[in-house]
């Protein structure tokens, strides 16, 4: 059984006097225990909202969440505030994008880590502090005894993110959501943090949802990739298959806009034109249609349905790449 089953998850924000905005429009995916699943897409495609919805961290007022998020068979969306609070940090962990603003500036690092352990393990402060020390040591923070007493502004960016990872993994959650965990870091530190995440996840058997716009991160870490566009999954595949043969024009476009070391100097990068904001709603056809290089007349008129293309892949496209444009077959 899957550890996490997200089914038809939709999130829309309604404000008085403003039209309702749908950020997530029926997303479904599974996370198997111990696997790393990537959610990939541009800014505004619904990645972060999906993760906040799974964690139950969206504000209650003005937010409509539908569908189901089954975690080991329990629907997280149906839990009371108290129950979901108990699961956060214990069963589900989360690491955010900006490590500086995600740490409390007036509480020492050690106390912040210990607080989580105290909360979920019910151990006294002293024991929690010594566990916190071990954790900081495990995530590779040098001189943990000193760092325990320091404040977030005294740590480097990489160390802050390590501390946040320590906090998220303090109670050995079975699922960790990492929301662009390396975007705010230097390139060299990015590699270290990804390496750390990979190791910790492998050691503890934690399943990981990796939210990113960086295909390099996906290529390096994820077992399975979900490509999101305008709040829907447009393509899903195992990592190797996705990179070997992207089918959705959006996936192909994302890959073509990343510089590669092994490409010849002649080849130019080809960005996807436009931005997510200028899409059309899914009800009136494919949302990617205005930016798509493969668009057919059909794409602007009918919403493409999800197709299982065999070998576990999933595709939402009328005219995928890597396949001859369907031509009416002429009889002999």
């Amino acid at each position, binding site marked *: 059984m899957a550890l996490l089953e997200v089914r038809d998850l939709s999130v829309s924000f309604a404000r008085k006097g403003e039209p309702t905005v749908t950020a997530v429009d029926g997303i479904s995916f599974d996370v198997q225990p111990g696997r790393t699943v990537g959610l990939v897409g541009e800014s505004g495609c619904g990645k972060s909202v999906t993760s906040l919805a799974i*964690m139950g*961290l969206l504000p209650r*007022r003005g937010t409509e969440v539908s569908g189901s998020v089954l975690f080991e068979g329990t629907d997280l969306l149906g839990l009371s505030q108290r129950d979901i*609070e*108990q*699961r*956060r*940090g*214990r069963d589900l*962990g*989360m690491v*955010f994008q*900006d490590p500086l*603003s*995600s*740490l*409390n*500036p*007036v*509480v*020492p690092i050690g106390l912040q880590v210990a*607080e*989580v352990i105290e*909360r*979920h393990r019910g151990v006294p402060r002293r024991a929690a502090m010594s566990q916190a020390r071990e954790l900081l040591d495990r995530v590779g923070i040098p001189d943990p005894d*000193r760092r325990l*007493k*320091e*404040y977030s*502004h*005294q740590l480097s960016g990489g160390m802050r993110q390590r501390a*946040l990872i320590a*906090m*998220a993994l*303090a109670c050995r959650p079975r699922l960790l959501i990492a929301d662009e965990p390396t975007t705010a870091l230097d390139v060299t530190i990015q590699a270290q943090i990804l390496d750390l995440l990979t190791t910790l996840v492998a050691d503890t058997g934690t399943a990981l949802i990796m939210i990113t716009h960086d295909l390099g991160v996906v290529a390096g870490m994820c077992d399975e990739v979900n490509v999101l566009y305008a709040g829907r999954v447009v393509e899903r595949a195992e990592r190797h298959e996705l990179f070997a043969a992207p089918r959705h024009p959006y996936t192909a476009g994302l890959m073509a806009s990343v510089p590669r070391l092994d490409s010849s100097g002649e080849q130019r990068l080809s960005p996807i034109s436009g931005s997510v904001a200028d899409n059309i709603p899914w009800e009136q056809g494919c949302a990617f249609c205005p930016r798509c290089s493969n668009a057919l007349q059909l794409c602007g008129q009918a919403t493409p349905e999800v197709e299982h293309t065999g070998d576990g892949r999933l595709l939402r496209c009328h005219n995928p790449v890597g396949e001859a444009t369907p031509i009416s077959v002429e009889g002999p």
Partner: protein
Amino acid sequence: MLPSTQRKQRIDELAETGPGPDAGVSLAASAWRRLRRNPVFLVGASIIGAFVLLALSSPLLAQHDPALRLLEDQVSRAQNEIPPPQPGFPLGGDQYGRPFLSRLLLGSQQTLLVAVMATVIGLGGGLTLGILAGAFGGWVDTLVMRVVDVMLSVPSLLLAVSIGALFAQQTQFTVILAVAIVQVPIFGRLLRGSMLAQRASDHVLAARALGVKERSVVFRHMLPNALGPVVVQSTLSLAVAIIDAAALSFLGLGSGDTSVPEWGQMLGSAQNFFDSHPQLAFWPAGCIILVALGFTLVGESLRDALDPKNRR
């Protein structure tokens, strides 16, 4: 010296001012580090220090009992005469022949008491309202803030006067209470605003994502980060409290008991003699202005020191 070595030295110096000296230093400690070098703070703190010292040691410094009419024989109602400075009485006496300098010295005690008590009570009330509104949000927030709005819509002195006038008998305590109630909405509104800002902050979201209990989120993650502006306001409010208390006394809503001297009340009773004996008003007014200035200077420099933009 060669330019290249100069540059090297500058870079070394810059590097040294990096995380080095601040290591192991809390927010409060680094704010203190900046304050110590700020001349505005030093001037303000000196004034306040002198004032507090004066208030504490005034029973020793004052040579005479402030309630005794020692120079009563020199007072003449008909000729509008008030005892002039003389040996043993450097500032002479007041309109009842009481020793003016001793009254001025001992007046610092009452003034300090009123300022501190009013601010503490106002702060307590304001914190309660601010935490309620900021932590619960929703209808609690709306209710609390409407009450605060109503209180803020009345000019503060007028409100203090109205509250003071509500009591049948004015004592020092009613003055404190009147001044304190005026402070409550200011603190409440300020704290609520910064609590809401904290509520939307990333580290509060991160704490929630770790399953931290709501109570702990409010008191450990939101409140301590929201207190900065309130700390600043409370030093400023000490100055306002002194002025408001003086104004109440001046308007005759102060303590009726004139045997215990207080600057505002001294100033108030001097108004009838302002033409002929301005020194009776000059001294207490000067003291009030100086002390209020001291608190204001400290408040302003504290505001700068706690400004997150100045933090490294």
